[in-house]
C-alpha cells in the first residue's frame, strides 16, 4: 500500500519538478528555475482563475498548440523539453489529449541528464498504457539504465518497469532485475521486488523460476523489501494457498514483530505500527488459514495480539461489513447485534442499507425469507442504479427459489423481480425461472399447481390494459402461457389468445418479445380446434412490414392447416426433452444421390476445398480454420432447444440442409442418433420419456427441514426491559428476521451453498453426452445431494476420533468443493480404520460426479489398497505381485547414496498413474524413520498426502510405497521432485526427481460410434493439423495402429479413409480425434472440452508419426 503513496507522489514532482529541492542539483540553475516555475505556474494560475469549462478548453488548446510547435522544433533543448513535458502532463491530466508529445517523452528518458530523464520516465509512465506501441521504444533505455553505475538511474528504470512494461519484452530485462535482488542498497532491492511483482501480475509463468528468490526477499533485513515481497505472496497465495503453508510461521513472526513495534518508527502511522503492512499480512494469513485447522492454530496468538492492539473503529459500514464476514462463520453472532442491524435498515444512507441487506441475505432461512425478501424488494423499488438492481434482483431470485414457503409467494416474488428489475436483470434469472417451471420437481402434482398459479397470475396481470411491463417479463409470461395455459381448464384459450393478440399490437413491445408471443400463440393454437383470433392474427400479420412477423404468421398459417403435424411438432410439456438433430442430414440422401446422378461434383467442406487448392498450387499451407458445418448445427440445436421460436428453427434447418447435402463426402456418419427432425419436420417421438426416467429421484428434504425448524430462538430473554412502542415494533421485526438462527439451525447458513431447505430443487439434467456410468453416478449423487455427511455421520460418530467428526462437520458447512477437499485429505487416512471407508468413498464418488460435466478436477478415491502400502521385497526392486500384471515401465534408478538407493516404476492403472518408489537399504543396519516427501508440482497432483514414512527399513532390504498421481495442469512433460531423509548417525537428506509425460496420464476411452458423434458435437475446442505420412505407412490403418499402440488411443471406428479415435486424460477429460488421409497427408482433427489437451496430444502424435 505504501508504494501506492509513493507512486502517487511521483506525480507531484512532475507538476512541480522545479520545486523539488532534492531533485535538481546542478541542472536547474537559478534562472531556469524561475522561468520554468513561472511557465507552469502561470498556466495553473490562469486555469484556476477561469470560471467556465469552455474557457479552460480554449486556453489549454492554445497551450497545446504552442507546446506542439516547441516540442517538434529541432532547436528545442532538452531542458526546455523537460519543461514542456511537465506542462503536457498537466494538460493531459486535465483531460486533453497530447499524444504528439509521447514520442518526445521517450526521447527525453533516453537522452536527458538525470533530472530530464526522470521527467521523461515520469511522462512515459503517465502517458502510455501497457499495450501502447511506443512502449517498445523504451525497452532499450531501460536496459541501459539498469546496467548504469549511477544508482539514481537504476532506481528510475526499476520504477518505470514496476509501473509499465511490455509483457513480451520481459525476458530482455529479467536477468538484470534478478541481479538487483542482491544489490547492497535496500531501495534497489525493494524496487526490484516491485518490478518482479509487476511481472508476476502480467506474466506469471515468466518468473516461476525465481520463486525461491522471493523467499529471500521475504526474509530481507530491510522491512521495505520484505513489505514489497508481500504483494507477490498475497497474489501467489490467492492462487494456490496450499503451496505456501510452510511460510505460515514466517508470516506469523513478521506480524508479531510488526505488532510488537519492532519496525523503525518511520513505519508508524499515528502511532500504529505499519497498519497497511498489518492488513496485508492478515490477508495472507487469512488465505493460508482458510479451512485448515492446523495452520490456523499457528496464528491464534498473533491474531489475538493484533486485535487487542487495533483501535476499534466506528465507521458503521465497516462494522456491518465485518459482521457480514463474521456471520459466514457463525450466524448466531448476528443475534447479539440484531437491534443495530434493524437500525441500519432504516438508515438514511442507502449504502449502509445495502450493506445491511447483504448481511440479511446471508442469514436468510426458510422462516425469515418472507420478511427479508420484502425488505429487499422495497429497496429494489427505490433503487435507480443499474448495478445495484442487477445485483439485488439476482439475490432475491436466488432466495426465492431456495426458500420459497409456497407457490403463490414464489410466483408473486418473481413477478415483482421481473417488473421492478425490468430489462436490466441478469438473463439467467428468467432462464432459471423458466427452467424451474419446465423441469419441475419431484412431485408432478405440485409442479402443475405451480404452473397453474403462474398462468393465473399472468392472466390477471395482463387484465390491466395500460400496464407497461418490461420485455423480459413479457417474454416469461408468454412462454409460460404458451406452455402451460392448457392446464387451466376454466379459462377459454380464446381469451388468452385475445390478450396475446392485443399485446402484439402494442408499440412498446420489441420485435424479440413479439417472437416470443407468436411462439406462445402457436403453441396455444395447437390445442384449439379453431379460433377466430388465430385466423385474424394470421391475416393481420401475413402482410406485416416486419419480415420476422410475416414469417411467423406464415408458419402458423401452414401449421394450422395440418393439425396432426402441429400436435406432433408442439407436444405438451416437452420443453425439457432433448431434441436430437440428425446432423448427418441422412434424409437428404435421395436429393444428393439425384444430384450426383445428374453429374454434380461431390460436396467438399470448405476447408478441404481450400486445402486442395493450395496443395495444387504448391504454396504454403495455411489451413484456415473455417467454421465446420457440424458445429454450426449443434449450436443451432442448442439454441433451438430453449428458443421460443422452435418453428423457425425447423425451417432454418431445412433451408440449410438444401445447400449442404454433404453425405457423399464420407464425413462422419451419425447413424445411431435418434431422428427427431427429418424430412417431414419433427418425427413422431417414441422414446422421449426414456430421458426422464433416467433422471435422478431426489429425496424429499422434509427430514432435514424439520431439524431447521426446530428450536425457536431464545433470543429475547435478555432484552425484556421496558420498551417504547417504536422499539417494540423493531423488536418484532427483529424476531421475524432472526428467526431460525438458533444454535441448531447453523448448519444451513454458510455461504449460500446449502441445499437442505431448498424447496424448489432442480433436477440435475443428464447430459446426452455422458455415458451410462456417469449417469448412474448421478443417481447416487442425487440421493446424497444435500448434506451427504449429515446422513451418515450421526450413526458413526462414536466410531471415529473426535477430530474427524469436527472436520467433517466443518466440511459440510462449507461450499461443496471444500467438502470434496476435506474428504480428499481426511477420508483415506483416518477413516479407513473405523471401517467407514466404503460408505464414505461412496459419498465422495457421488459428490465428485456432481462436477462431472463442468470438468472440474475431480477427486475419486482409488481403491485404498493401491494408495499407500508398504511391504517388504528383495533387495533388487521388483513390482509387487498384484501390480505385475498391469502395464508398467521399467524400474529405473533415481539416485544413490552410501546408504540408500532409490528406484521408481510407473504403473499405468486404469484410473491413475501409480508411481511406485523403492527405497533400498544398502547398509548392514536397519534404518529408522525414512521419510519420503514429494514437493508440490505445478502440473501434477498427488492424491492424498505427498509424504510417506517408512518406520523402519531392515538391513539389506527394499521397501516400496505407491502414490497415485494425476496431471493437474496439462503439459507435455514435467518433473515431479522430492526428497528423502532418514536418521542414521546423523540426519541425511537427498533429493530426486522423476520425469512424467502427458502420455503417462492418457488412457484409451471405449465408446461407440454413436457416443462419439454426440460427444463430438458437444465439444468446442478444436485443433486441426496436417501431418505428412512417410511412404512406409501410407495407409490409414497403419497410421491408426501406430496411434493406438504408442499413444493408447482407442480406435472407435474406421470408415473409408477416415478414422475416429478417443482417449481420456485421467481422471475423465475426453479427447476425440478424427483422422483422414488424403494425398500422402494425414489430417488430424482434435476436439476436447479442455483447450490445452488437443495441443498436447497433437504434439505427441507428430512425434510418434515422425518416429515410425
Amino acid at each position, binding site marked *: *500500500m505504501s508504494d*501506492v503513496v509513493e507512486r502517487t507522489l511521483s506525480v507531484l514532482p512532475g507538476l512541480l519538478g522545479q*520545486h523539488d529541492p532534492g531533485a535538481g542539483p546542478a541542472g536547474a540553475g537559478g534562472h531556469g528555475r524561475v522561468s520554468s516555475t513561472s511557465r507552469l505556474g502561470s498556466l495553473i494560475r490562469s486555469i484556476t482563475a477561469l470560471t467556465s469549462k469552455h474557457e479552460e478548453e480554449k486556453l489549454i488548446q492554445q497551450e497545446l498548440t504552442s507546446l506542439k510547435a516547441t516540442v517538434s522544433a529541432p532547436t528545442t533543448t532538452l531542458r526546455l523539453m523537460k519543461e514542456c513535458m511537465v506542462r503536457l502532463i498537466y494538460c493531459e491530466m486535465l483531460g486533453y489529449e497530447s499524444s504528439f508529445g509521447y514520442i518526445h517523452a521517450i526521447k527525453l528518458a533516453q537522452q536527458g541528464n538525470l533530472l530530464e530523464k526522470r521527467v521523461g520516465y515520469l511522462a512515459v509512465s503517465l502517458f502510455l498504457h501497457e499495450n501502447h506501441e511506443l512502449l517498445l521504444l523504451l525497452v532499450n533505455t531501460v536496459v541501459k539504465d539498469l546496467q548504469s553505475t549511477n544508482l539514481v538511474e537504476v532506481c528510475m528504470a526499476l520504477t518505470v518497469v514496476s509501473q509499465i512494461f511490455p509483457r513480451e519484452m520481459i525476458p530482455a530485462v529479467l536477468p538484470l532485475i534478478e541481479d538487483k535482488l542482491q544489490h547492497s542498497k535496500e531501495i534497489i532491492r525493494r524496487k526490484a521486488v516491485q518490478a518482479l511483482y509487476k511481472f508476476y501480475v502480467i506474466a506469471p509463468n515468466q518468473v516461476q523460476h525465481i520463486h525461491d528468490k522471493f523467499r529471500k526477499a521475504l526474509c530481507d533485513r530491510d522491512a521495505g523489501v520484505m513489505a514489497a515481497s508481500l504483494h507477490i505472496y498475497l497474489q501467489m497465495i490467492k492462487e494456490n494457498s496450499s503451496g505456501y503453508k510452510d511460510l505460515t510461521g514466517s508470516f506469523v513472526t513478521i506480524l508479531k514483530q510488526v505488532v510488537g513495534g519492532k519496525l523503525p518508527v518511520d513505519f508508524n*502511522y499515528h502511532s500504529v505500527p505499519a497498519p497497511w503492512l498489518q*492488513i496485508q499480512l492478515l490477508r495472507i494469513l487469512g488465505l493460508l488459514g482458510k479451512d485448515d485447522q492446523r495452520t490456523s492454530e499457528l496464528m491464534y496468538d498473533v491474531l489475538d495480539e493484533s486485535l487487542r492492539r487495533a483501535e476499534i473503529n466506528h465507521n458503521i*459500514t465497516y462494522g456491518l461489513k465485518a459482521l457480514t464476514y463474521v456471520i459466514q462463520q457463525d450466524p448466531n453472532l448476528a443475534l447479539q447485534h440484531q437491534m443495530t442491524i434493524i437500525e441500519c435498515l432504516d438508515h438514511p444512507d442507502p449504502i449502509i442499507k445495502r450493506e445491511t441487506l447483504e448481511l440479511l441475505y446471508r442469514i436468510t432461512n426458510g422462516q425469515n425469507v418472507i420478511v427479508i425478501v420484502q425488505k429487499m424488494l422495497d429497496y429494489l423499488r427505490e433503487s435507480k442504479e443499474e448495478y445495484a438492481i442487477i445485483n439485488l434482483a439476482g439475490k432475491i431470485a436466488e432466495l426465492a427459489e431456495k426458500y420459497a414457503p409456497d407457490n403463490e409467494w414464489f410466483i408473486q416474488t418473481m413477478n415483482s423481480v421481473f417488473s421492478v428489475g425490468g430489462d436490466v436483470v441478469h438473463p439467467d434469472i428468467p432462464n432459471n425461472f423458466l427452467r424451474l417451471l419446465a423441469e419441475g420437481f419431484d412431485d408432478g402434482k405440485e409442479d402443475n399447481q405451480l404452473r397453474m398459479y403462474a398462468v393465473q397470475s399472468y392472466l390477471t396481470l395482463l387484465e390491466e390494459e395500460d400496464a407497461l411491463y418490461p420485455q423480459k417479463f413479457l417474454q416469461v409470461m408468454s412462454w409460460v402461457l404458451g406452455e402451460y395455459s392448457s392446464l387451466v381448464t376454466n379459462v377459454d384459450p380464446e381469451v388468452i389468445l385475445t390478450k396475446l393478440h392485443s399485446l402484439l399490437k402494442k408499440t412498446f413491445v420489441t420485435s424479440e418479445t413479439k417472437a416470443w408471443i407468436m411462439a406462445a400463440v402457436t403453441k396455444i393454437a395447437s390445442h384449439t380446434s379453431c379460433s377466430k383470433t388465430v385466423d385474424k392474427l394470421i391475416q393481420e400479420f401475413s402482410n406485416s412490414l416486419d419480415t420476422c412477423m410475416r414469417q411467423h404468421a406464415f408458419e402458423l398459417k401452414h401449421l394450422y392447416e395440418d393439425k396432426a403435424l402441429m400436435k406432433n411438432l408442439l407436444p405438451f410439456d416437452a420443453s425439457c426433452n432433448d431434441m436430437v438433430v440428425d446432423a448427418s442430414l441422412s434424409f437428404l440422401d435421395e436429393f444428393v444421390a439425384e444430384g450426383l446422378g445428374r453429374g454434380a461434383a461431390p460436396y467438399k467442406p470448405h476447408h478441404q476445398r481450400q486445402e486442395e487448392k493450395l496443395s495444387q498450387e504448391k504454396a504454403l499451407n495455411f489451413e484456415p480454420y473455417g467454421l465446420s458445418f457440424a458445429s454450426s448445427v449443434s449450436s443451432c440445436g442448442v439454441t433451438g432447444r430453449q428458443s421460443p421460436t422452435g418453428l423457425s428453427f425447423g425451417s432454418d434447418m431445412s433451408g440449410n440442409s438444401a445447400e449442404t447435402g454433404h453425405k457423399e463426402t464420407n464425413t462422419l456418419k451419425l447413424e445411431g442418433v435418434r431422428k427427431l427432425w427429418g424430412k417431414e419436420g419433427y418425427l413422431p417421438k417414441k422414446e422421449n420419456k426414456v430421458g426422464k426416467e433416467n433422471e435422478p429421484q431426489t429425496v424429499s428434504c422434509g427430514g432435514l427441514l424439520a431439524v431447521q425448524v426446530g428450536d425457536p430462538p431464545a433470543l429475547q430473554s435478555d432484552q425484556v426491559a421496558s420498551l417504547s412502542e417504536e422499539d417494540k415494533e423493531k423488536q418484532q421485526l427483529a424476531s421475524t428476521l432472526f428467526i431460525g438462527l438458533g444454535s441448531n439451525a447453523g448448519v444451513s447458513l454458510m455461504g449460500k451453498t446449502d441445499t437442505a431447505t431448498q424447496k424448489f430443487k432442480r433436477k440435475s439434467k443428464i447430459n446426452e453426452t455422458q455415458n451410462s456410468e456417469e449417469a448412474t453416478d448421478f443417481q447416487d449423487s442425487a440421493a446424497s445431494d444435500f448434506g451427504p455427511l449429515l446422513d451418515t455421520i450421526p450413526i458413526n460418530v462414536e466410531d471415529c476420533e473426535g477430530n474427524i467428526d469436527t472436520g467433517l462437520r466443518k466440511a459440510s458447512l462449507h461450499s461443496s468443493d471444500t467438502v470434496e477437499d476435506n474428504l480428499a485429505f481426511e477420508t483415506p487416512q483416518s477413516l479407513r480404520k473405523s471401517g467407514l471407508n466404503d460408505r464414505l468413498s461412496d459419498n465422495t464418488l457421488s459428490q465428485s460426479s456432481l462436477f462431472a460435466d463442468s470438468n472440474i478436477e475431480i477427486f475419486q478415491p482409488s481403491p485404498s489398497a493401491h494408495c499407500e502400502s508398504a511391504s517388504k521385497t528383495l533387495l533388487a526392486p521388483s513390482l509387487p505381485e498384484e501390480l505385475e500384471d498391469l502395464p508398467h515401465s521399467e524400474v529405473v534408478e533415481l539416485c544413490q547414496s552410501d546408504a540408500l538407493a532409490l528406484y521408481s516404476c510407473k504403473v499405468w492403472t486404469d484410473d491413475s498413474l501409480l508411481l511406485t518408489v523403492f527405497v533400498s537399504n544398502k547398509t548392514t543396519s536397519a534404518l529408522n524413520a525414512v521419510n519420503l516427501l514429494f514437493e508440490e508440482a505445478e502440473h501434477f497432483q498427488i492424491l492424498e498426502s505427498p509424504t510417506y514414512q517408512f518406520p523402519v527399513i531392515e538391513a539389506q532390504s527394499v521397501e516400496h510405497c505407491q502414490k497415485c498421481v494425476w496431471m493437474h495442469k496439462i503439459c507435455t512433460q514435467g518433473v515431479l521432485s522430492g526428497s528423502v531423509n532418514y536418521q542414521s548417525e546423523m540426519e541425511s537428506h537427498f533429493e530426486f526427481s522423476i520425469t512424467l509425460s502427458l502420455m503417462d496420464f492418457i488412457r484409451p476411452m471405449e465408446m461407440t460410434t454413436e457416443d462419439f458423434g454426440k460427444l463430438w458435437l458437444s465439444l468446442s475446442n478444436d485443433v486441426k493439423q496436417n501431418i505428412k505420412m512417410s511412404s512406409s505407412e501410407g495407409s490409414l490403418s497403419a497410421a491408426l495402429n501406430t496411434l493406438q499402440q504408442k499413444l493408447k488411443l482407442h480406435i472407435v471406428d474406421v470408415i473409408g479413409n477416415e478414422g475416429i479415435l478417443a482417449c481420456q486424460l485421467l481422471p475423465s477429460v475426453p479427447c476425440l480425434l478424427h483422422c483422414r488421409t488424403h494425398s500422402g497427408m494425414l489430417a488430424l482433427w482434435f476436439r476436447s472440452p479442455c483447450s490445452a489437451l488437443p495441443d498436447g496430444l497433437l504434439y505427441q502424435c507428430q512425434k510418434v508419426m515422425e518416429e515410425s
Partner: protein
Amino acid sequence: MIKFFLMVNKQGQTRLSRYYEHVEINKRTMLEAEVIKKCLSRSKDQCSFIEYKDFKLVYRQYAALFVVVGINETENEMAVYELIHNFVEVLDKYFSRVVSEILTLIRNISYFSKLSYVSHLRE
C-alpha cells in the same frame, strides 16, 4: 486494487488525477465529473464509501477539496480511507518547506497550499 486517485474541488475541477488502470482520456473527464457529483451529493453524516458501477469510491473532504479513490472489491475500504489521510499528511510534510519559501507566489493558485493549510488546522 486501486483504480484511480483523484483530487477534485467543489466546483468539479480536477486538480490531480492518477490512473492505475488505463482509461481513455475522454472517458476520464466523464468519470471524474460523475464521481464528484456523487461525492457532492452526500451529506456529512453519510459514510465515506460509495458504490459506483462495479467498483467503490472512498472519499475524504478537506475544506473545498475532495480526495477520491476508486477501488475494486479486493481492497479494504477503511485501509484506503486512512491511506488518503496519510497521503495528505505526506503532501503536507513534503511541501511545507517549499511552500513556505514560495508561498506568496502560489498561495492563491494552487491547491496544495490549501491542503497544507487544512492539514495544519487539523493538527
